């Protein structure tokens, strides 16, 4: 044998020995969870990877919710989509109407042969991500709702009882006045203003936000959030803003940081903020249900869901889908769900997980941790089941913009809401036209 053939045959031997057949199938998961929530996601992936050898979930942080959705869409257009994409609840209608891009979770679970019972999921949570024909389209992952946090130390300093949070909006205004008198520059603020003060507010009082069951019944839905109750509430907030009792701290969740830092004493925000508050607040804090107007019949009803769900993208090899089903099975197990719920403040998505958390005494040891759950585990009505609209992100931005004119003193509550409804309806008409199936 000459030199060349020895070299060539050793290379061939080396390739033959380096057999990659036993490597785990990689499942790409793109998500938008940063900070402590990002650590939670990584721990979930690690827990699943350590529990079996066939699949490896790789979790990648892609930025905010809109950035993650945009990245997922761009990747899909380039033929390079991830296996699992976390999409916020506002993008649900967009994902639902893109029939070729996703594979319904119900189908993925059924095809895999793994046990899957849609009825084991909390209806207020899973119902949002279910098609009208009953098929579950995406897997609820981090579902939150709107709750009320307050600074107990600031309450004490203002002469308020820290064990009695304000339950009605009138009480909130009174508490804010006392807090301001005791030197608090920011008595009350809110995060995600459209979600907390209009969407969840409407469901909490059993009034409709949009026609056709808030959009659940079809794309010919139109907005209705300029009704008398919503106008009254925005006017109340406007009055509070004029007196410095309500301070606007920006769009989306920009106000979130102002509560754990002690800058604002009361905030309506996502249940998912609890993790950051636990970690960073250097004062005694309390958790309470969303305030309501006690003279409205039927209030308090239930609040609407926030957060995100996991969508399965199409065009992947068959063994990837088996891996995805296996991962979803792991995520839905009562132990994993209960641990996630305790850690993050997000809702448990199965009733079994809720019961497990209850029997473990967690709610008794941590008063306030069941507030979010109690607001959601109720019988829903047609007007409170949830809001599913097309072009919802633009509609929320329109609401942000019109309300900013109110806080800046440039518009009155009724005029601003009317304008928001009119501009929002244009978005709904456009969505209806573009999705005429």
């Amino acid at each position: 044998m000459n030199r060349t053939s020895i070299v060539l045959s050793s290379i061939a031997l080396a390739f033959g020995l380096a057999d990659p057949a036993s490597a785990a199938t990689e499942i790409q998961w793109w998500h938008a969870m940063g900070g402590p929530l990002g650590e939670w996601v990584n721990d979930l992936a690690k827990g699943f990877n350590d529990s079996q050898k066939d699949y490896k979930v790789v979790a990648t942080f892609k930025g905010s919710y809109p950035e993650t959705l945009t990245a997922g869409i761009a990747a899909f257009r380039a033929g390079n989509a991830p296996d699992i994409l976390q999409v916020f609840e506002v993008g649900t209608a967009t994902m639902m109407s893109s029939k070729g891009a996703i594979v319904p979770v119900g189908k993925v679970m059924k095809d895999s042969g793994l046990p899957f019972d849609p009825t084991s999921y909390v209806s207020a949570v899973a119902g949002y991500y279910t098609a009208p024909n009953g098929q579950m389209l995406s897997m609820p992952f981090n579902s939150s709702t709107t709750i009320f946090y307050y600074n107990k130390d600031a309450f004490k300093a203002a002469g308020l009882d820290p064990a009695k949070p304000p339950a009605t909006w009138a009480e909130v205004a009174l508490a804010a006045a006392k807090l301001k008198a005791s030197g608090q520059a920011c008595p009350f603020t809110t995060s995600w203003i459209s979600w907390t003060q209009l969407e969840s507010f409407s469901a909490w009082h059993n009034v409709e936000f949009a026609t056709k069951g808030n959009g659940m019944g079809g794309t010919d839905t139109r907005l209705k959030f300029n009704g008398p109750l919503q106008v009254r509430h925005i006017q109340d907030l406007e009055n509070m803003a004029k007196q410095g009792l309500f301070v606007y701290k920006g769009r989306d969740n920009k106000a979130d940081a102002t509560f754990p830092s002690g800058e604002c004493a009361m905030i309506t925000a996502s249940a998912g903020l609890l993790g950051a508050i636990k970690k960073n607040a250097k004062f005694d804090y309390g958790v309470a249900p969303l305030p309501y107007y006690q003279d409205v019949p039927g209030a308090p009803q239930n609040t609407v869901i926030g957060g995100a769900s996991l969508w399965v993208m199409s065009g992947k090899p068959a063994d990837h889908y088996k891996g995805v089903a296996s991962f979803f099975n792991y995520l839905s197990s009562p132990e994993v769900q209960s641990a996630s719920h305790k850690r993050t403040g997000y809702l448990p998505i199965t009733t079994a997980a809720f019961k497990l958390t209850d029997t473990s005494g967690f709610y008794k040891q941590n008063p306030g941790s069941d507030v979010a759950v109690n607001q959601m585990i109720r019988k829903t009505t047609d007007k409170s089941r949830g809001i599913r609209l097309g072009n919802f992100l633009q509609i929320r931005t329109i609401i942000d913009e019109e309300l900013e004119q109110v806080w800046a003193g440039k518009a009155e509550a009724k005029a601003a809401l009317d304008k928001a409804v009119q501009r929002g309806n244009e978005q709904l008409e456009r969505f209806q036209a573009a999705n005429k199936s």
Partner: protein
Amino acid sequence: MAVEKRVVFRSAWLPWALVAPQALVIGIFFFWPAAQAILQSVQQQDAFGISTEWVGFANFERIFSDPSYIASFKTTAIFSLLVAVGGIVLSLLLAVFADRVVRGALAYKTLLIWPYAVAPAVAGVLWLFMFAPSIGVVSYGLRKMGISWNSLLNANDAMTLIVLAAIWKQISYNFLFFLAGLNSIPKSLIEAAAIDGARPWRRFWTIVFPLLSPTTFFLLVINIVYAFFDTFGIIDAATEGGPGKDTAVLVYKVYYDGFKALDLGGSAAQSVVLMAIVVTLTVIQFRFVEKKVNY
């Protein structure tokens, strides 16, 4: 009779080969995206690109009937005028001062050039941290002085913030060109004028400024294009187009409609309109303003 010396390039393919890399870059990074934008502006697509529909000029009709789009024309005009004029005036001032300084001239020049290396988004965040109504150092100082500053809710405050950040970033670029321009003015002209009794102010307006006019014209074109396009990062980081839509310049609206609202047809239509505007502005500048430039 003097023979005119003409340089002839004998090779037939070498010129093309030398120009090819640059042509390729321009082709890939300008012409291809521009063609794609024009194509998408006459289509209506869903977010994932699965269904595509030809809609002719419907996207253009839709954007022009949107009052917030018309309003953003006005916002962009105000913004770019403030940034271009403000930037040029300020950097000219600094260049004139830096030209006269003898001690520590290098230090001043280095410090004035540094901001150019800062990425636009970083510049936006920097200024946001200084001027944010809750946590900004400068906001704190302004409040202590009794000036109310709230760029979250006050449109003028928000516009001031982005104009300041945009001018700050561009000062270095303008400064460098003005400094070079000042250095190229023959000292003998200035001295002659001084001997004739012209005061500094007079010398500046009758000698220095006219001789700087090629530089000023060039910088005017560059600054307008900068204000139209490169300020996106600053605006997104500092105000996100708010409050309301009061600082949503045209390029910001293109980004928002394309990437957040996922309305690719409308966003592409706006890009085409924006491209047409800047091309027209540049042509106007070259045709009319250039006449006033003394070379």
